[in-house]
């Protein structure tokens, strides 16, 4: 994907000049998505925050050398984050899903406490179901559904074909449906 019209190019140039305002804007623009990606893949808020900091250190190191016209910055940042996630997942000694401590985090205001509680419970179940997926299926659903990347972008990041991505997505959704709804049909 070409970075000729990269919406982040101007901010990166500012970061490369050590402009504090550009740094703040880039963090505000990228951190939420980066954190979402890491937390959903790792299933752990603390680890996701550490990973976000590591990823931004790489951003600061690269900002002055960023060449417009290559890959888009957002794609590059996803690639960096995914590699950091792979490293952390590899380091885990067993395949047991990590505990998800996101339940202690505030969630968006809901109309009623009952509704908020229901949302939290549903969110917990989805987090557990995501954590139980094989890593590549989890990665596919996080990139396509939660990060809202196109199928071409997600496949490129995962270094697989679109057909292989569709296979992973289909299996992931089938497994999630079985876990969450108790339905094995699709």
């Amino acid at each position: 994907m070409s970075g000729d019209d990269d919406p982040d190019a101007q901010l990166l140039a500012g970061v490369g000049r050590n402009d504090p305002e550009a740094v703040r804007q880039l963090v505000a623009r990228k951190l939420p998505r980066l954190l979402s990606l890491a937390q959903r893949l790792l299933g752990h808020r603390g680890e996701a925050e550490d990973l976000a900091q590591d990823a931004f250190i790489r951003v600061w190191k690269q900002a002055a050398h960023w060449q417009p016209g290559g890959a888009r910055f957002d794609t590059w940042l996803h690639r960096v984050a995914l590699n950091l996630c792979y490293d952390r997942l590899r380091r885990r000694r067993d395949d047991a899903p990590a505990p998800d401590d996101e339940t202690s985090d505030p969630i968006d205001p809901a109309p009623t406490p009952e509704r908020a509680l229901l949302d939290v419970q549903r969110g917990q179940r989805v987090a557990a179901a995501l954590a139980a997926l094989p890593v590549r299926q989890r990665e596919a659903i996080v990139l396509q559904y939660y990060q809202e990347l196109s199928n071409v972008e997600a496949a490129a990041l995962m270094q697989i074909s679109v057909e292989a991505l569709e296979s992973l997505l289909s299996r992931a959704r089938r497994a999630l449906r079985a876990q969450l709804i108790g339905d094995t049909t699709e």
Partner: protein
Amino acid sequence: MTPDRLRTLLSTYGADWRRWPAGERDAARALLARDAAAQQRMLDHAAQLDDWLASHAVAAPDRALSERIVAGASTTLRARRERAWWWRGAGLAAIGLAGSLAGAWGVSLALHDFGANPGDWPLRATAFSALPADWSDE
């Protein structure tokens, strides 16, 4: 677009057409519109899982994390700038040293040529070169 492919789209990408591959959206939506009743069950089925997935929210980053990351930027960028200056200074020093070495080498070569053949004539000749060393001609 075939009903089979539409079913695959729904089971792969979910019920929201904005998540479908861009090149297939129009055809898939047209097929849905032509026979909405027949496709509605599939659509509802996919939407049910979408609703579940949407309930998994990730809390926004807190201010402390943002501040730590911003603080890391100034540290990293300053260190990078200092390294750049160091390398620039080291480069200039290396150029200077290389020049000195090249000069010394050139001088040594010149001196080496000068002394290579002591009897060369006329390079080392003086007004007295032709005279015998014991002044016997005098």
